[in-house]
């Protein structure tokens, strides 16, 4: 009896307690979430949204399906073997007339021009001349206005434009294009550039990462071993590049590296060189300047990991009979690996996005992918291409990170 009473009263008290606890728990979670919310929103607005927009505009382009709706619809069941029939030309004439009225013909001609260089002015002048024409038949009239409409190429572009999604930008970013039959073919050699640029971006990043590691590791070791008073002073020297803007550092290198600059001047006055070496506008100069800028990024994680390694490990190895190099290589070095991994990854990923340094110190053969993204965004206004190049770079970086993760393991990375 007492037992049942107890259990009964227990259950009546327990239920509200649990809900109360849950409520408290929920409130605590909400409060924690509210604290994180600004950061979450910040990341969402400044990072996730733009990136997904960018990825989307690399493949999404509805210019033609929106502005040339009749033509793209009429072309849906065109087989692409011969010129389309009269009703397609009729649709084209209507679309172009409307585009001319609404001043959208510029967009249409630009979009066609991306795939058919030189077509823009033909499309524009056709629209202008059509606006003076009252009625059909249009096929002969249009071919008379411009031979463009008598070739299959432009119809292929318009037919593909019927879909809001296009592979054109991504294909062009890896040196492929559509031919007149809408087949994907490799771009002709004199136009192919982007595969080279991606490869170059990768090579420069790898070289700079290796150089910063080779230079940074001994310095980090020295810094970790020296007494604090000396190492602090040296640390300031190492950190100096951090306090100067990248643009300034790069410009300083331009001054040093030019034909009549400081470095060539010294080498020539010492009679080491008889004529100035080509240091500026070269791959060497680019890698040199980037290595200088990136050095602290590689060095600092290594240094902080080295600081945390107890000196007694090496001492123990030595007392057990290991030689100085053996003790360093087998006992000390493996413990620095997480720092090396972190520093190299940091530098490598930052290098992939370099823009201003190659632009100022490098020659035309040293421009990295960001340079092309900037040119397409700012000068050429071809945001589809800019997005496609960016999307490929992002994907490649993520893939590399996954590979790195498999090989080294992200949990082994240590910044400090």
């Amino acid at each position, binding site marked *: 009896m007492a037992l049942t009473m107890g259990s009964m009263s227990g259950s009546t008290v327990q239920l509200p307690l649990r809900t109360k606890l849950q409520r408290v728990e929920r409130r605590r979670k909400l409060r924690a979430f509210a604290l994180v919310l600004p950061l979450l929103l910040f990341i969402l607005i400044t990072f996730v*949204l*733009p990136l997904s*927009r*960018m990825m989307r*505009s690399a493949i999404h*382009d*509805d*210019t033609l399906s*929106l502005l040339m709706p009749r033509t793209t619809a009429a072309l849906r069941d065109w087989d692409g073997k011969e010129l389309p029939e009269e009703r397609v030309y009729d649709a084209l004439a209507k679309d172009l007339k409307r585009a001319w009225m609404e*001043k*959208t*013909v*510029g*967009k249409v*001609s*630009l979009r066609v*021009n*991306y795939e058919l*260089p*030189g*077509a*823009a*002015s033909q499309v*524009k002048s056709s629209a202008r001349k059509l606006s003076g024409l009252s009625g059909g038949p249009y096929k002969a009239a249009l071919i008379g206005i411009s031979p463009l409409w008598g070739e299959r190429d432009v119809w292929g572009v318009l037919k593909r434009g019927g879909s809001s999604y296009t592979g054109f930008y991504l294909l062009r970013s890896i040196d492929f294009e559509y031919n007149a039959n809408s087949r994907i073919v490799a771009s002709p050699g*004199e*136009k*192919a*550039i982007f595969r*080279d*640029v991606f490869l170059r971006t990768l090579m420069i990043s790898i070289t700079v990462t290796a150089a910063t590691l080779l230079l940074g590791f001994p310095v980090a070791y020295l810094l970790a071993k020296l007494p604090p008073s000396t190492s602090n002073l040296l640390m300031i020297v190492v950190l100096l590049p951090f306090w100067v803007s990248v643009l300034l550092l790069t410009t300083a290198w331009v001054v040093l590296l*030019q*034909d*009549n600059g400081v470095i060539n001047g010294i080498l020539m006055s010492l009679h080491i060189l008889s004529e100035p070496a080509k240091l500026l*506008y070269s791959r060497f100069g680019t890698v040199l300047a980037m290595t200088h800028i990136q050095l602290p990024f590689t060095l600092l994680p290594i240094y902080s990991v080295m600081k945390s390694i107890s000196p007694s490990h090496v001492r123990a190895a030595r007392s057990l009979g290991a030689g100085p190099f053996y003790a360093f290589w087998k006992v000390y070095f493996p413990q620095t690996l997480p720092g090396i991994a972190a520093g190299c990854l940091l530098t490598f990923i930052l290098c992939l996005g370099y823009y201003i340094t190659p*632009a100022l110190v490098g*020659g*035309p*053969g040293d*421009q990295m992918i960001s340079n*092309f993204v900037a*040119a397409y*965004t*700012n*000068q*050429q*206004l*071809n*945001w*589809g291409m800019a*997005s496609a190049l960016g999307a490929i770079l992002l994907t490649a970086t993520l893939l590399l990170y996954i590979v790195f993760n498999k090989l080294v393991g992200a949990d082994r990375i240590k910044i400090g």
Partner: protein
Amino acid sequence: MRIGSIIARAVGVAGVSVSALLSAQPVSAADQLTIVSWGGNFQDSQRKAFFEPYASATGTKVTEDSWNGEQAKIRAMVETNTVTWDVVVGGSMGQLCADGMLETIDWNKLGLDPEKFNGREDCAVPANAAANIIAYDKDKLPSGPKTIADFFDLKKFPGKRGLNSRPIVNLEWALIADGVPIGEVYKVLSTPEGVDRAFKKLDTIKKEAVWWTSGAQQAQLLADGQVVMTSAWNGRIFDAVKNSGKHFAIMWDAQILGYDYWVIPKGTARLDEAYKFIAFASSPEAQAEMAALIPYAPGNQDAVALVDAETRSNLPSNPEHMANALIYDEAFWADHQDELTQRFSAWMAN
């Protein structure tokens, strides 16, 4: 949402905050004008010839900004409806105009005779014409190049050459140096064989080429002795001679004249003011004033008569300099820029 992507949004947000700041000032919208130009000594001259006289004549507060022709900025402002630039000076405005990003010029509203403005476009009033020329240092080359073919002649004139890192002007010159008559340059360049021919000619000087990316580098390359001659804009070289005491000379053969334009971004709140300013800056008197400060050919033909003889001798439009001159073809480059820039980049890198 169409292509007007996040970049546009971001710039737009920045634009909103800037315009919010501007409107917070106790000046009414009609009394101010934001004018954007190329910067450097070009904009300094414009300030003396146009901005300051206009400001004192009308009581308008002129705010200046400068740009490097990043047309994305105008596009972003217009697409996000946050236009803060009222009048812009720039070249190659055809594409923005066709995209509906610029006001179509109403010449009646300007009160000017369009016939006086060669090179006018639907959305653009010619401000002046700058010449692309070859410049060299007389101290180092006492008998400099005489024709554009000399620029491509490494035997006669050994040494490095400064060239624009974009295809414009380079391809034209390559064809002229290869013997194409100046009147047929763009016709030849419109054919694939013509483009191949131009690149083949450029191949001959490629190993001696130093590429410049901004106007400031032209005189700098010459002054530093990095190049023996360079392609340049005549105003930059004039400035180096006049203000830095350099002994640079200009070779006018096959000069390529390109226009700078006044344009109005679509949707500016100060449309009437913008028209008023462009009308002021296009008057023969103001244009003559400008030509005296920096020797670019005035956009308004009537201004030439008001210019003194010495200034006139420095202008690209001087008949002596026009003997073998080419007018930069905006329409050709609107069609082929995308294609040729890519090919040029590929060519430069290999």
